[in-house]
């Protein structure tokens, strides 16, 4: 019951991820929650890096790009607000899993890489190209930047998937579950 309540509460920040609300155990390592909390923190950390490094330190990204359509403003606002909530909620969830000794580190790391790469790729393809919120850098030839940005995201994403795959495949043996 407690877990079910908790699971529904996070569906907002973890859209697209279905949380099994009927998991019976609470004491053993919780692989599903560990993965999910890794994904959330990965997304939030990558979003924070984007904001701090590219917007603030390098000032490559623009706060607002004149070609931004207003629908993109709405999506940007929602995403931006969700990132902050995800960061805070993810860390408190992480702390709660650790406190209950339910955290499983491999799935958490896999989820982290998956979330970080997924966000990078999403930002590079949807925010920069589809919604045209802003570009990576201005006054330069964009293609190399776009390629590096999206390939880096894809590499992170695949690395995360690989770590998760390995964690899953070793589970039936002696892995904690």
């Amino acid at each position: 019951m407690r877990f079910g309540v908790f699971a529904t509460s996070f569906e907002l920040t973890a859209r697209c991820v279905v949380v099994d609300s009927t998991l019976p155990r609470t004491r053993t390592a919780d692989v599903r929650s560990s993965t999910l909390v890794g994904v959330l923190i990965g997304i939030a950390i990558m979003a924070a890096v984007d904001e701090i490094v590219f917007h603030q330190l390098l000032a490559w990204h623009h706060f607002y790009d004149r070609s931004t359509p207003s629908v993109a403003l709405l999506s940007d606002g929602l995403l931006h607000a969700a990132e902050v909530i995800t960061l805070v909620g993810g860390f408190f969830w992480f702390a709660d899993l650790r406190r209950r000794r339910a955290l499983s580190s491999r799935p958490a790391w896999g989820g982290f890489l998956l979330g970080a790469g997924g966000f990078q790729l999403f930002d590079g393809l949807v925010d920069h190209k589809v919604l045209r919120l802003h570009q990576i850098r201005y006054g330069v030839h964009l293609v190399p930047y776009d390629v590096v940005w999206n390939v880096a995201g894809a590499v992170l994403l695949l690395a995360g998937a690989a770590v998760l795959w390995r964690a899953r495949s070793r589970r039936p043996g002696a892995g904690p579950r």
Partner: protein
Amino acid sequence: MTAAGPLAHAGHGAAGPTWLPLFPVALLAAGYVLAAVRNSRGWDHRRTASWLVGCALLAVAVGPLAQLPDNPRGHMAQHLLLGMLAPLGLVLAAPVTLLLRVAPPPVRRAVGRLLRSRPLHLLAHPFTAALLTTGGLAFVLLTPLYAAAERQPVLHHAVHLHYLAAGYLFAWSLAGPDPAPRRPGLAVRVGALLAASAGHAVLAKYLYAQADSLPPGLTDRDPEAFRSAAQLMYYGGDLAELLLAAALFAAWYHSRRPRPSPSPSPSPSPSPSPLIKRFASPEGGSLTQSS
């Protein structure tokens, strides 16, 4: 200290002296400290500190910031302090719990009745409160109300009072340790925070994009200053969202702390008085109702 009031912008120096808005703030601070000292059961000093921080932020907003010459950035900083940062400090200080401890029985009964009343539950629903804060702000900034409030001190005070009241209501509905009957579950509250913050961010970027024409009705405008104010609004809103989310999830984290039943390891942080904590924070109850 004798210059024009907070609302006296360039040439409207007829408002009262600047210390006038500081008076109610000082009254709030002194009243709380007095009540905390009088409370025989002891009062958590962190709550008192939180209240005093909230009052200090209020004082900055209505004192020094109001002295600045007419300037959109100053107004935006006032809005951020009055409507977002100060209310969180005040809410986390649990003033209603303190009042229920020290007030005579008739007052307590009246407060209890008020807390159980249907209209309050509607008003203090996280989504209503979100609409009042972010929607109220949008209403001020997107209509000629902003320009009117620049001319009329009374209106300006009223707008500030609305910022404070709506911000307090929102922070209380999300994360207030004070008793809040029928408070919705965590998912609804996180959703309201998301909606309010997204609305705030969109409004900030929209104002940035339209700084040439918004807020409407101003005679002499400096678009660059409004763009700068819009950026302050965007990042200030982030800070407020971060703090609100931290308060919200910290309350959740606290409510989920393991009970000492089956665990062999001792509880890491023994609560000083579980009974009072339970009363002060209805988290546990509201969470179990939520789904």
